């Protein structure tokens, strides 16, 4: 190969003049391409198709008319959708808050590394690996109004035989309890990682300064928990918001339709009532809410992550003095 004056203008960034060089160019496409194709085919396309469906009105016979945004209009103006949304958010809120607290507690216990913790860890981590459907059945059986063991416990404590699926408040409590039981382990994992990311020297310094346990927790530990807390909020809020199995199995959406989650509503509308268009519209509205929540939380997360990267130890963090006073 002889160098020519035009070689310098050769397409830079291309390594295509050799056999392996060509392989190098095709490699990223071949590595990432199939995945992207599969994902586009099975996510982007169905979502667009779902949007298309939501603009139609489907009846049992399979016939459909294009009704544009009528489904959305119906959903957003009649109270039904908003009630379900509120209900779903209500359950989500309580479940996530309880999971945060309980998860943190479990993580703290695990972090103490007391002997015998192996069994504790084992038991605590099992629920999140079980199928949510199975968990729903667990609680269905325990909460049965006539023979459920939890019904029995409540009865023996003098509360009578609570009808978990008939009384609205009790039904909500059951759903919350189911979610909390299953997913607190996940929160525990996140919190534990956060607790273990605190540099040991900070605790040692606090010990030397004889800071109280409360000060240690709020000033040293908590800042390192910001990210795990945000992660918990992100994942748990969105996952709980989608909940389906528990209301389907335990309450069947009852009493009436008062514990019908948005997912269950979409399913019932689309499949039980065969109103595909309406069902698709509900699921699209859900999608919008989910991505809105995610957008906010991811912004907060990236902000926190940037803060964490900039200062490994925050130079502005208050220093605890020997008398417990806060020095700056």
């Amino acid at each position: 190969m002889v160098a020519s004056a035009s070689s310098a203008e050769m397409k830079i960034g291309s390594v295509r003049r050799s056999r392996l060089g060509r392989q190098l160019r095709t490699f990223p496409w071949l590595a990432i391409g199939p995945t992207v194709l599969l994902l586009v085919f099975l996510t982007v396309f169905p979502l667009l198709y779902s949007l298309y469906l939501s603009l139609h009105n489907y009846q049992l016979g399979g016939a459909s008319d294009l009704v544009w945004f009528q489904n959305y209009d119906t959903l957003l103006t009649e109270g039904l959708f908003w009630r379900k949304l509120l209900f779903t958010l209500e359950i989500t809120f309580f479940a996530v808050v309880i999971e945060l607290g309980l998860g943190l507690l479990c993580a703290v216990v695990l972090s103490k590394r007391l002997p015998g913790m192996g069994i504790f860890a084992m038991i605590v981590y099992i629920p999140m690996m079980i199928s949510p459907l199975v968990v729903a059945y667990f609680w269905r059986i325990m909460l049965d109004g006539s023979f459920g063991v939890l019904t029995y416990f409540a009865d023996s404590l003098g509360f009578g035989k609570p009808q978990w699926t008939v009384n609205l408040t009790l039904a909500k409590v059951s759903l919350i309890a189911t979610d909390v039981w299953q997913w607190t382990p996940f929160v525990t994992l996140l919190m534990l990682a956060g607790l273990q990311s605190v540099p040991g020297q900070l605790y040692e310094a606090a010990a030397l300064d004889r800071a109280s346990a409360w000060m240690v927790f709020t000033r040293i530990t908590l800042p390192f928990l910001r990210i795990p807390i945000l992660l918990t909020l992100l994942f748990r809020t969105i996952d709980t918001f989608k909940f389906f199995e528990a209301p389907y199995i335990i309450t069947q959406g009852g009493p009436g339709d008062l514990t019908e989650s948005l997912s269950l509503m979409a399913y019932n509308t689309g499949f039980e009532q065969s109103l595909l268009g309406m069902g698709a519209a509900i699921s699209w509205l859900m999608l919008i809410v989910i991505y809105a929540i995610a957008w906010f939380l991811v912004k907060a997360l990236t902000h926190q992550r940037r803060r964490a990267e900039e200062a490994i130890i925050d130079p502005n963090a208050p220093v605890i003095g020997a008398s417990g006073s806060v020095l700056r």
Partner: protein
Amino acid sequence: MATLTLTDLSLTYPGGVRAVRDIDLVVADAEFCVVLGPSGCGKSSLLRLIAGLEQPTSGIVRLDDQVMNGVYPGERDIAMVFQHNTLYPNRTVREHLEFPLRARKLSSSERYRRVADVAAMLHMTDLLDAQPYQLSGGQAQRAAIGRALIRQPRLFLLDEPMTSLDASLRFEMRTTLKGIQSELGVTTIYVTHDQDEAFTMADRIVIMNEGSVLQDAGPEELYERPKNLFVAGFVGSPAMNLLRGAVYGGQVIAGGFGLPTGDAPVIDGQTVVAGVRPEDLVIGHATSGSTGRIVVVEPQGDERIVSIALNDVPEPLIWKVRAPKPNGSGEYRIGQPVAMTVRHGCLHLFNGATGSRII
């Protein structure tokens, strides 16, 4: 065994950082060329351009008149040793040495022979069946060198391979490496920030700073005739003493201290920088020459590095002198007034604005 030619080579990163600026360089066949410079000067980038691990923004890389731009690194017949350990965790040294040979599909007996030869050359015959975790830093790098050379490449590149080794080991490795290189006659480019390494091993040294080549010459020439201020200040330990001042009446004047300019082509009022190496200064009694006070004495075996304050206004100008151990009457004392003279012909003058050499 090949000649490397770089023409107008540049590399600009997407953020706008110009790592390599318009470099022209020729490395002759079997030459041991060292690229020397401070961290971030672009020497590693230059090496990676030659290897093909980065694509140049412009310019041509030629090996024996073959244009290498656009050729996959592995197909350029170039071998490279990296700064950190690149041995695979679970393979023996023997397997590492065979690795490049397998890619070229040599016969099993041929592979065995070559492995034995290279191991002998590197004094690694007894380590052939060891695993990386059993090797010390020096042994691991030797294995990496062996893996590179076993291919008999046209060009051998090394990117600061001894940085992570300790001092005594480095000394030994330098000799081994230089020995192998001259025995094999493979054209070699060695990147480092360590002057000692450069001066010990190089046939030729290329000094780089901020992406450009500042001087490209043999060790002696680099030391005795630095082309510009950067090279002058960079090469030599302790560094050359520098004085920035104006020319007046045949002298370079700054802060009350003056050095004669001799027959250098300078004019009055011109800003220059004068430089004298520590070993080119002689300490004498405080009667002739420029006078000053001793401030620090650093014993270095047979020598002393004496720091002398030449004036006091506003901050003392401190120059270092490499002086032999004083005979007879005792050590240099702090506070002792002494005189300093420059050995004949050892003054370096640089243009005050551009930094390039005047004499």
